[in-house]
């Protein structure tokens, strides 16, 4: 399918329904699709499963908790061990109003990679002998224990890149590839927010990070600056 280009983030996310699972790229301030998240906040759809590295660290994702749009979070960093300030998510989590699945970051990344690459699962030493191993199969191979981890996919992925061409070829800037590059492969519908859309041919083929085959919907937005708050 050729990529569809939208003139604003509201239109770009208009296909998202309640009860959807959505991957959100980004790592704290780098590469978070904040314009798409704010559109989701304004839209008000409910009962979402949010899959993101972090929530409540200054990111806009925490806004989705203001009106309890999120039913479940799958993340690597969501609850702080110290610090006084609590995010909306943390307050809801401690009241038992939202479900949390906490995953080691490398396992989170690899599950998404597997989900996007048609891999049925993988063996990782991470989490052996910890709470992460609960209800998981332990497989011993070459005298070492591994957990069997399964792929992760979603209905939608919201990602943020630096530039796109009109066919959805993407390049990222700095440390913003993070989860964006892998989430772009692992959802049924991938919506990309970029700072600039250029003509086909203006991006060097050698420099494309995410080929346009992975992108369904594209919107150019002024980036929203966010910062870690601890």
């Amino acid at each position, binding site marked *: 399918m050729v990529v569809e280009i939208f003139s604003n983030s509201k239109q770009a996310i208009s296909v998202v329904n309640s009860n959807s699972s959505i991957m959100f790229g980004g790592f*704290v301030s780098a590469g978070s699709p904040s314009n798409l998240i704010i559109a989701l906040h304004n839209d008000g759809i409910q009962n979402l499963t949010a899959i993101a590295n972090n929530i409540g660290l200054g990111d806009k994702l925490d806004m989705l908790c203001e009106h309890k749009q999120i039913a479940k979070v799958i993340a690597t960093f969501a609850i702080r*061990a*110290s610090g006084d300030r609590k995010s909306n998510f943390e307050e809801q989590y401690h009241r038992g109003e939202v479900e949390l699945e906490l995953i*080691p970051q490398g396992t989170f990344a690899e599950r998404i990679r597997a989900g996007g690459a048609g891999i049925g699962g993988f063996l990782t030493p991470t989490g052996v*002998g910890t709470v992460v191993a609960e209800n998981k199969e332990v497989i011993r191979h070459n005298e070492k224990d591994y957990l069997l981890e399964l792929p992760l996919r979603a209905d939608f992925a919201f990602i943020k890149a630096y530039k796109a061409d009109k066919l959805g070829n993407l390049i990222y800037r700095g*440390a913003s*590839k993070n989860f964006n590059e892998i989430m772009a492969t692992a959802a049924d519908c991938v919506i990309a927010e970029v700072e600039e859309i250029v003509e086909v041919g203006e991006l060097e083929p050698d420099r494309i990070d995410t080929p346009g085959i992975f992108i369904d919907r594209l919107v150019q937005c002024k980036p929203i600056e966010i910062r870690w708050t601890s």
Partner: protein
Amino acid sequence: MNQGLSRELIALRASKELHDGMYVNLGIGLPTLVSNFIDDLDITLQSENGILGYGNILEKDFDPDFINAGGQPVEILPEASFFNSAESFAMIRGGHIDVAILGGLQVAANGDLANWFVPERGGGSIGGAMDIAVGAKRLIITMAHTTKDGKPRILDRCLYPLTAETCVDLIITDLAVIEIVDNQLILLETAPGITVDEVLSLTEADMIIGTSIREMSL
């Protein structure tokens, strides 16, 4: 008893474990301070959010795309490269990181580490800690020797949920440097003004006194 080392001096002592040519991952919190003491070394810092080759933490000119895993703006060195999180953890889990320095809550005599969840607070997050603990070739834990109310953190068995089993190689605290070899703690160094007996009395697990035990050089 005498005061132990400040957080900065723990970081300084930890920096002495690093050598030219190493690829190093520094955890959030105290380990971040180690980067203040490595200017004379030819070391490449990796941050799990997808940077290899970053420098100092920047005080101003915040750019949201140039941050470390603690969300702090960092200087991007000429040799730097950026990559996605799956590739980042291929470096970490795949054994390409020579040394990782992480914070700790509890360490057991067998090298088990607990550093992500505080039961009293009902809080904590895993982040990259479990993968880093499993994957780094050498894992150094920097932490306070005891809790705020003086209870040992170096234990026979960790009471908090584990980060990883038998992963810790060296513990650097405000009071001592302790190596773990074959499920055995070995006291290598004491902080200036701290006696061996003081360290032993504030450590739950049994410890061998190293044959060449000495005061930390800082």
